[in-house]
């Protein structure tokens, strides 16, 4: 069988059956690979065994086979990466030649790095891209026919690998991820979220491998066929692993495996093969059964192997069985190409959100426009403040978070990167990258772990040229504003024309039309009273004539009017009735949320009205006075008493509940609230005291500080413990916030500015964060440099900000070394700066040995030391 002409892979993939090879580790272990030995070293030390491995699969009939490079990256092979990859490709070529299978494709095999990406791990996204890029460049130059990224269990790492492949070669890029029996990646993502992201990135095929046997994979495969539009690839293990004498063994034999693969093929996938535990015999039988060239399988042999069926993965009574031999195997499985799904989906690391099924809320609060405190937070790089805005909106019911961090005097691309990566480590809501700076847009889209929403493109040529190439490269659902060089059309006709223009531009750039959402533009009715009607008509026509989805910045409609919330809420209802898909709004606005929830309930979009009931079961009757003098805010307050609003802060610690419990007749005093760590009641008490006319400073000095001191002393005596200390600190902070509002015009002084950082190599920062809370409480301003911070960064910031005290934290003996190095560099550059150290392994002796000025065993000790430094 000598086949010479190798067609381009993409002329075959998705148009006819293609087969992957099977396990590598399994075969190499039989050839003597030791557990723990690096398989890629065999490319150099035992080339004949690798050629033999490939020949086995080529003779079995596979079309795509993997180079022995799964674990080849510069972390594992810092010195001989090039030799190992070049040898791998050359051995694959040799095998192809020996077997006369010149039609087969050599896949440059890429597996995970083994490291977790930032911010939870310590590998930066760009470093991951670099590591993969090295492999891709070497492998492509050596003559691989495609890149196969496989066994990925983290969507972020998948994204890094796909980007590296697309940026460094022109070969087809295929990727398979590992899902567990709940249909999730190890890092949490679902089939839906992974498909959305990968198709956005433009992969040529995607699917699932490893982790499970074919039987357990069936629910995953089913979901893939429902969500993916590109060719689907399925490479299972030979069943679930079992351990025998320290070795992993797989029990599903070739016949049974092929039976299952036949069933999987019939579900509408386009390429199949095997992973761990599968052998050339498994692949040969699979090719025969699926392509239909082989003899009928032996009757029933091994099909009921209980080890291969995990009943828990299926609903009761639905445990599937492999196709029995009574169906004639030689007939094969008819090939079906995949179909386009035309779904509009954005995704995060955890979940996919589909646009168009029911109206969605895009939280608009992460935006400095008109917000003094937010601007201040951006200037001071107070990431917590910004992240807290995100959490608050999630709590209030947002489905997507808009992220706008544009401020003329800051480095917007850098800030976008920090906020996007910060948000995606604490919330699972998809993000909408909102900026007019193309560089910031690209940073945000690139670093985003999922398929983002992009705000925005418009009908101007310049905007189209800036935004669409990025959307085509990184994937995203783009908001298309219906305005162009001539401004905003006054008529629905004009806006529909621009919408069409934007759709056509999407076609040109290869972005599917479903990835464009049209912004019909809400303009205030205070300047043009016909404005709302034009917007509503545009919404209707995009839905009915263009069959597209829409978005609106809803509250613009009422600009310049009193009681804006009334107009906003009613306009929102009207817009949703006209087909609005996404409302960009403040989910903390009770009236608009009420309109939203009522609309869902009335439109049969809230099953059993459960969402509505949950939100308003405890609500007081709404009383709107007929006089019209009741400000909109007051009218809405009654609604807020339901669960729907955002009582207190997110992640409410229950102090609210405790407060109402303690109330029983009277509210706790400010001091009492702080001592008991009740933040909501502390804020209420502070407000009540201020209303009696007591000067703010008296309140701080005579009530707040003494309460805080009592707690601090109790902690030092061992009568009060860490959680209480922190809860009291938080209650005090809540009270401070209230007091600060009354001091807004006066300049607020801090006692001093302190840098806190967890040293390089250390990613645990809880201790540092505790110290931060306490120092802030005692009036210090903290420059929190985060964790895993390089000595150079600490020195640089100390110098630039002229800092007198630096606090360093290290958790492990291994990272005390970086603490010592940081101190050494600080001493050389800034001898006058004091250094306080702490952390789990730290002791006075250690601190002395590495040259710190002070060892602080706990947070209060740091406070006391700060007081001596800033005396």
């Amino acid at each position, binding site marked *: 069988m000598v086949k010479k002409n190798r067609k381009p892979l993409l002329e075959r993939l998705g148009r006819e059956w293609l087969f992957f090879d099977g396990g590598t580790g399994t075969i190499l272990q039989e050839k003597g690979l030791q*557990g*723990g*030995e690096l398989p890629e070293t065999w490319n150099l030390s035992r080339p004949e065994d690798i050629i033999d491995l490939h020949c086995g699969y080529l003779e079995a009939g596979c079309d795509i086979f993997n180079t022995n490079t799964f674990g080849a990256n510069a972390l594992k092979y810092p010195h001989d990466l090039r030799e190992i990859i070049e040898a791998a490709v050359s051995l694959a070529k040799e095998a192809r030649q020996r077997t006369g299978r010149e039609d087969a494709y050599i896949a440059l095999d890429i597996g*995970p790095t*083994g*490291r*977790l990406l930032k*911010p*939870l*791990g*310590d590998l930066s996204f760009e470093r991951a891209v670099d590591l993969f890029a090295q492999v891709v460049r070497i492998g492509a130059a050596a003559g691989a026919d495609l890149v196969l990224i496989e*066994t990925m*269990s983290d969507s972020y790492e998948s994204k890094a690998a796909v980007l590296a492949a697309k940026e460094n070669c022109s070969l087809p890029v295929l990727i398979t991820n590992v899902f567990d029996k709940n249909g999730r990646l*190890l*890092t*949490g993502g679902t089939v839906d979220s992974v498909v959305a992201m990968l198709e956005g990135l433009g992969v040529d095929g995607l699917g699932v491998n*490893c982790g499970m046997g074919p039987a357990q994979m069936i629910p995953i495969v089913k979901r893939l066929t429902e969500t993916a539009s590109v060719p689907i690839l399925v490479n299972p293990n030979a069943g679930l692993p079992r*351990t025998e*004498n*320290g070795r*992993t063994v797989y029990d599903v034999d070739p016949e049974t495996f092929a039976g299952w693969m036949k069933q999987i093929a019939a579900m509408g996938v386009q390429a199949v093969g095997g992973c761990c535990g599968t052998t050339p015999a498994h692949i040969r039988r699979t090719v025969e059964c699926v392509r239909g060239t082989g003899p009928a399988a032996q009757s029933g042999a091994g099909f009921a192997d209980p080890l291969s069926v995990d009943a828990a993965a299926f609903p009761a009574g639905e445990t599937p069985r492999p196709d029995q031999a009574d169906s004639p195997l030689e007939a094969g499985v008819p090939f079906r190409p995949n179909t386009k799904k035309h779904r509009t989906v954005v995704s995060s690391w955890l979940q996919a959100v589909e646009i168009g099924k029911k109206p969605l809320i895009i939280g608009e609060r992460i935006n400095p426009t008109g917000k003094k405190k937010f601007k201040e937070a951006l200037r001071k790089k107070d990431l*917590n403040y910004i*992240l*807290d805005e995100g*959490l608050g909106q999630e709590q209030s019911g947002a489905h997507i978070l808009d992220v706008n961090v544009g401020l003329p005097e800051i480095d917007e691309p850098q800030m976008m990167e920090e906020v996007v990566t910060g948000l995606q*480590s*604490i919330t699972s809501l998809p993000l909408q990258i909102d900026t007019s700076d193309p560089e910031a847009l690209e940073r945000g889209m690139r670093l985003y772990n999922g398929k983002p929403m992009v705000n925005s493109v418009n009908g101007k040529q310049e905007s189209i040229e800036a935004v669409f190439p990025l959307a085509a490269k990184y994937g995203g659902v783009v908001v298309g504003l219906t305005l162009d060089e001539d401004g905003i059309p006054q008529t629905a006709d004009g806006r529909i024309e621009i919408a069409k223009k934007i759709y056509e531009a999407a076609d040109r750039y290869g972005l599917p039309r479903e990835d464009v959402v049209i912004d019909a533009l809400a303009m205030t009715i205070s300047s043009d009273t016909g404005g709302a009607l034009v917007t509503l008509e545009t919404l209707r026509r995009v839905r009915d004539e263009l069959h597209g989805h829409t978005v609106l910045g809803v509250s613009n409609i009422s600009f310049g009017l009193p009681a804006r919330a009334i107009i906003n809420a009613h306009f929102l209802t009207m817009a949703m009735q006209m087909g609005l898909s996404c409302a960009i709004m403040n989910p903390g606005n009770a009236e608009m949320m009420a309109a939203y929830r009522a609309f869902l309930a009335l439109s049969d979009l809230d099953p059993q009205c459960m969402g509505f009931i949950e939100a308003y079961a405890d609500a007081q009757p709404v009383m709107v006075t007929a006089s019209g003098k009741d400000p909109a805010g007051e009218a809405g307050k009654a609604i807020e008493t339901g669960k729907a609003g955002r009582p207190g*802060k997110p*992640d409410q*610690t*229950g*102090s609210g*509940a*405790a407060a109402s419990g303690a109330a029983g007749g009277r509210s706790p005093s400010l001091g009492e609230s702080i001592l*008991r*760590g*009740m933040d909501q009641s502390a804020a209420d008490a502070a407000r009540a005291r201020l209303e009696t006319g007591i000067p703010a400073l008296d309140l701080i000095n005579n009530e707040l500080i003494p309460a805080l001191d009592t707690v601090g002393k109790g902690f030092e005596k061992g009568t009060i*413990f*860490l*959680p*209480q200390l*922190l*809860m009291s*600190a*938080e209650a005090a902070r809540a009270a401070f916030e209230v007091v600060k509002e009354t001091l807004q015009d006066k300049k607020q002084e801090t006692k001093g500015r302190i840098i806190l950082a967890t040293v390089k*190599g*250390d*990613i*645990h*920062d*809880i201790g540092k*964060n*505790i110290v*931060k*809370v306490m120092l802030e409480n005692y009036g210090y301003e903290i420059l929190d440099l985060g964790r895993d911070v390089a000595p150079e960064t600490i020195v640089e910031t100390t110098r630039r900000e002229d800092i007198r005290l630096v606090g360093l934290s290290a*958790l*492990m*003996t*291994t*990272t005390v070394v970086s603490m010592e190095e940081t101190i050494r560099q600080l001493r050389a550059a800034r001898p006058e700066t004091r250094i306080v150290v702490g952390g789990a392994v730290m002791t006075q002796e250690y601190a002395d040995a590495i040259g710190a000025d002070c060892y602080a065993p706990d947070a209060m000790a740091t406070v006391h030391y700060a007081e001596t430094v800033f005396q």
Partner: protein
Amino acid sequence: MIKVDKKEIFRYLGYRKNLPDEEVMGLVDRCLADLQAAVTPRCIFRQYPIESVYAIDPAGRPKDQGAKEAARPLLRIAGMEIRSGSLSRNLRGCESVYLLGTTLGLGPDRLVARASVTHMSRAVILQAAAAAMIEAWTDSVNRQIMEQAAAQGLYCRPRFSPGYGDFPLEYQQDFARILQLQKEIGVTLTESLLMMPSKSVTAVIGLSREKEGCVLHGCEECTKAEDCAFSVSEDA
């Protein structure tokens, strides 16, 4: 659902013999509920022979201070060569071991990160509760191992992790490779050999024909035991 002894959580929070007040108690309960919903417990364990042990002193102690090599005999397990006095004392009389990896997944790390933005008190309690939970999860896996061992007529020794005593942390890399921790249970190592997810455990569990008082975990090998606020024995 992993059953967690709340006393363990209080101990991690530094309460020693005291009980937290009502507010903290309530917060602990809420944190535990959130953790139960967020964890994805996974484990992997495999049995390996101890291939050779050199120069083990019967008492497991150095005969004289100069004979450091004798005090730290060489153990060969699954291709690892380990020179550790404390591990060889732990494995005295054992013919094989289980290598074990357990994790709660990234859920707890994400919850702590989230709480750190708004309420450090909550972050601290989540941290302590997750620490108690990974111990409880590892204990339950350890019990499975004890049952499997019993079926072979073997008894387990207390589990022993890289970083305990003089068993170097560097062996985390070998554990990662041998047990394929990243692929099997999603556990990765940072450059400085910390495990992520942070609520993860790796350990050696020795198997012997002879029964010894087996505890699931204890303080005996920790060098901090004397003045540690978290000591088990002090609170027990």
